[in-house]
């Protein structure tokens, strides 16, 4: 059974782009369109090995989702790579403080994303 990765972004094109790269490498992809949907997907898929998550999303943003999940479960440990247009140092530090494993600025390089996922989550 392939390892599950949750992709959270309000842009369907970006979700599809990430899914093509990671799904093409053999991972099973679960999509979510915002932080609320993302948190739901994370709770519903406890076997997921990683999430790729946007920062600025309507409703609930990526870092807010991360903070919410950590507040909900002290042991929350799903590795998350933030994939965003943001480059502000304070946001990066906030994500890091809440357990994110990486910060990637769009547009992403497919080989870099795949290498990062393999490094953090292992092969599919």
């Amino acid at each position, binding site marked *: 059974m392939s390892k599950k990765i949750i992709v959270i972004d309000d*842009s*369907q*094109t970006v979700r599809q782009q990430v899914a093509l790269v990671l799904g093409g490498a053999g991972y099973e992809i679960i999509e979510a369109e915002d932080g609320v949907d993302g948190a739901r997907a994370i709770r519903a898929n406890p076997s997921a090995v990683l999430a790729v998550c946007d920062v600025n999303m309507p409703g609930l943003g990526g870092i807010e989702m991360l903070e919410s999940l950590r507040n909900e479960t002290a042991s929350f440990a799903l590795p998350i790579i933030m994939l965003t247009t943001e480059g502000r140092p304070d946001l*990066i530090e906030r994500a890091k403080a809440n357990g994110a494993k990486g910060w*990637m*600025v769009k*547009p992403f390089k497919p080989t*870099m994303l795949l290498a990062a996922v393999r490094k953090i989550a292992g092969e599919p």
Partner: protein
Amino acid sequence: MNGEVPALFVRRVLASCVEEFFDAHGMACEIIQEGAELPPADHVELGSIVGFRGNGVRGGLAFVAPLELIGELLPVPKSIEHVDAQMRDWSAEIANQLVGRLKNKLSARSVNFHVGSPVCFTGKAIRFVFLPDAEGTSLCFRASSSSVHVHLECSLALGEEDAADPADPNDVRIVPEGEMLFF
């Protein structure tokens, strides 16, 4: 910025954002000088707008391009069933990425803002004409034999130290576009 007036600074930064975006997506793009713009063609355009607001800054950016060009820039296969929604989504994401680049460059001048969700309009000859006293910038580019218009209205308050700093806005960034930081 080297004493450059804010309006010219913003224009220069915006131009570099657009050129870098197209370069990152593998498409050549050149700015068209004022007066040399192609006449509006009778084809469908998508116009996506993103608003932003922060301390000392508020405004909006609009990215307007022909539907065909949006399709050429699409990084995934074109949908058969939902192509209209897909093109709108991608047009909106382009505007989002342009504002993201703008934000990262302006952060080097201590200008920070929150970005809203982009929205996409469909039309023909979509244009903004700023009033003479508005803080608006309109740039036209040629990309893949199409005209691309980027409009930015941005009320920007730069401090004296930021206005006097001659550093290039490209110099100061934590994580450049296309790169990754591991924690």
